[in-house]
């Protein structure tokens, strides 16, 4: 069983996202430990990209703060190596194809395996292009996470059949960011996914409060929250660990 599967063993999984190096890696380390202690089952670590085309303004801001703070892929690898000495929660990287490609796909993915990264999410890598990285990911046992969108329609089965780790269900059209309402019929999407694979599915994009999390967790195995957490980090800066930890606890309690 992959490490990612373990995240979904104890009931509904809560999956927070943060951008590494926002505002600095020391703070990121504190936030990760606090989130893990407060019930995060799997943590998405964003490697910042200069031009994050799938992100709304909140996470774009985090990318800019992190890059202007001088974070690089190498520094994030060192950071995770250090983190793994005492943090056992499953970790996945979320970044853009060019960050992996430019580093050298095999060099990037083999390093992920060495330092204990369990999966990679690339929002600009659809099913048609996944052979760019998938064979190497499978070779090194790093799960390449597939995304399914409200517009996927007849593509859902094809994507689900060949997915690794967990399936990331994009709840809504558009970019990342909090939304007051999620109108996509998630239960219908999940039922098609279920017909084609046994791996867990988690819903993300637009979920910002315990009520939405609870609602979404009825249909899926996990709930992903990014912008609502990143907004707190933007607000609290170096003192983010505690407020983010409290928020994670609230969210996790809501979906238990």
């Amino acid at each position, binding site marked *: 069983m992959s490490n990612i599967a373990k995240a979904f063993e104890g009931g509904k999984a809560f999956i927070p996202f943060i951008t590494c190096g926002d505002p600095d890696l020391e703070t990121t380390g504190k936030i990760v430990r606090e989130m893990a202690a407060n019930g995060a089952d799997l943590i998405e670590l964003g490697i910042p*990209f*200069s*031009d994050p*085309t*799938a992100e*709304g*303004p909140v996470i*774009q801001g985090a990318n800019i703060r992190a*890059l202007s703070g001088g974070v*690089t*892929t*190498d520094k994030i690898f060192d950071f995770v190596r250090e983190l793994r000495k005492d943090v056992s929660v499953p970790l996945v990287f979320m970044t*853009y*194809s*060019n*960050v*992996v*490609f*430019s*580093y050298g796909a095999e060099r990037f993915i083999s390093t992920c395996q060495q330092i204990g990264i369990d999966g990679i999410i690339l*929002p*600009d*890598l*659809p*099913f*048609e*292009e996944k*052979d*760019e990285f998938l*064979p190497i990911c499978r070779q090194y046992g790093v799960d390449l996470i597939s*995304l*399914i*969108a*409200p*517009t*996927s*329609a007849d*593509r859902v089965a094809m*994507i689900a059949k060949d997915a690794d780790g967990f399936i990331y269900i*994009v709840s809504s*059209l*558009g*970019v990342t960011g909090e939304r007051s309402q999620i109108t996509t019929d998630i239960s219908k999407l999940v039922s098609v996914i279920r017909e084609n694979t046994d791996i867990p599915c988690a819903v993300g994009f637009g979920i910002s409060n315990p009520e939405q999390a609870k609602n979404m967790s009825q249909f899926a195995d996990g709930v992903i929250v990014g912008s609502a957490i990143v907004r707190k980090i933007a607000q609290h800066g170096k003192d983010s660990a505690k407020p983010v930890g409290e928020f994670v606890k609230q969210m996790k309690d809501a979906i238990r």
Partner: protein
Amino acid sequence: MTNPKGRFGIHGGQYIPETLMNAVIELEQAYEHYKNDPDFVRELNDLLANYAGRPSLLYYADKLTKTLGGAKIYLKREDLNHTGSHKINNVLGQALLAKKMGKTRLIAETGAGQHGVATATAAALLGMECVVFMGEEDTKRQALNVYRMRLLGSKVVPVTSGTATLKDAVSEAMREWTSRIDDTHYCLGSVMGPHPFPTIVRDFQSVISKEAREQILEYEGRLPDAVIACVGGGSNAIGSFYNFIGDKDVRLIGCEAAGRGIDTFETAATVNTGRLGIFHGMKSYFCQDEFGQIAPVYSISAGLDYPGVGPEHAHLHDIGRAEYVPVTDDEAVDAFEFLSRTEGIIPAIESAHAVAYAMKLAPTMDKDKIIIVTISGRGDKDCAAIARYRGEDINE
């Protein structure tokens, strides 16, 4: 092993969010259908002839030729098209296609504003809603074009993210498209982005070389020795090259914006300074740092101020079929002024990059040689910025 769809050698592909995949598949199917549909072809040709003013002239620049004292120079006058640039060729095709697909709204990115103006024009003509994304920096450099778009009934959204230039306008248009797909077509302005855009835009722009080839054969009874065009994303260049690619003796020369020079960081010369990457839906060459962060490029020309290049150009470079040369701000501004004085033609600052290289190349060639230079657009929009470059403040 990578997806063979929409590839030019190793370049191209469809590196976009899953949310957009069915939209580009639908677009590809519609295009494959309509490009051979006699009614569609007739309608488009009618618009090109009677609305855009095609064919554009291939003008023998006698005075320029004699002043430079070398090869004969012909100018392919895309600046004479309706809206003042080659952008209208692609936009009329895409807008008509979008309309056939039942879309009621166009979105577009723009750098210099030429593509935005062309899209706003087509939207007005075909009765469609239009929103144009433009880097905030460019809305200042090209204030006149912002006004033109608004006058045509479009909304202009200034983009403040990143470097607030063309690449950020593309990113923002892509973000907008993922949030509203049903009624909206993303009218991409260059031979870039995910498949099928590089192919669709190239096909619609290839009218430039189709005409130029016929015209030069008529005037000179032979093919040119070189075709020169400026390259940002590369739409007027691929349009100028396309029907000459099979003619191995015709040199194809793309002029990249070197900004303050390719040995500085203030440059946008992608083929000369970039390396292979994946961005904005395609694999191609990009200006980037060692960790794949896209570089904040610079050029005096808002239309060439882009850190990537279309995948077909990347391939033509790889196989050695086309040459990509850097032209600096200084050289382009000199050419802008030189062509204005010599021929009474004010070229867009983008096109002035091509003129600048022709000014270097022509004197090295014999008088019986022939060069075609594509004047991709007119330079009225640039006058205030060039005056500023020369230290003179004028009110637009």
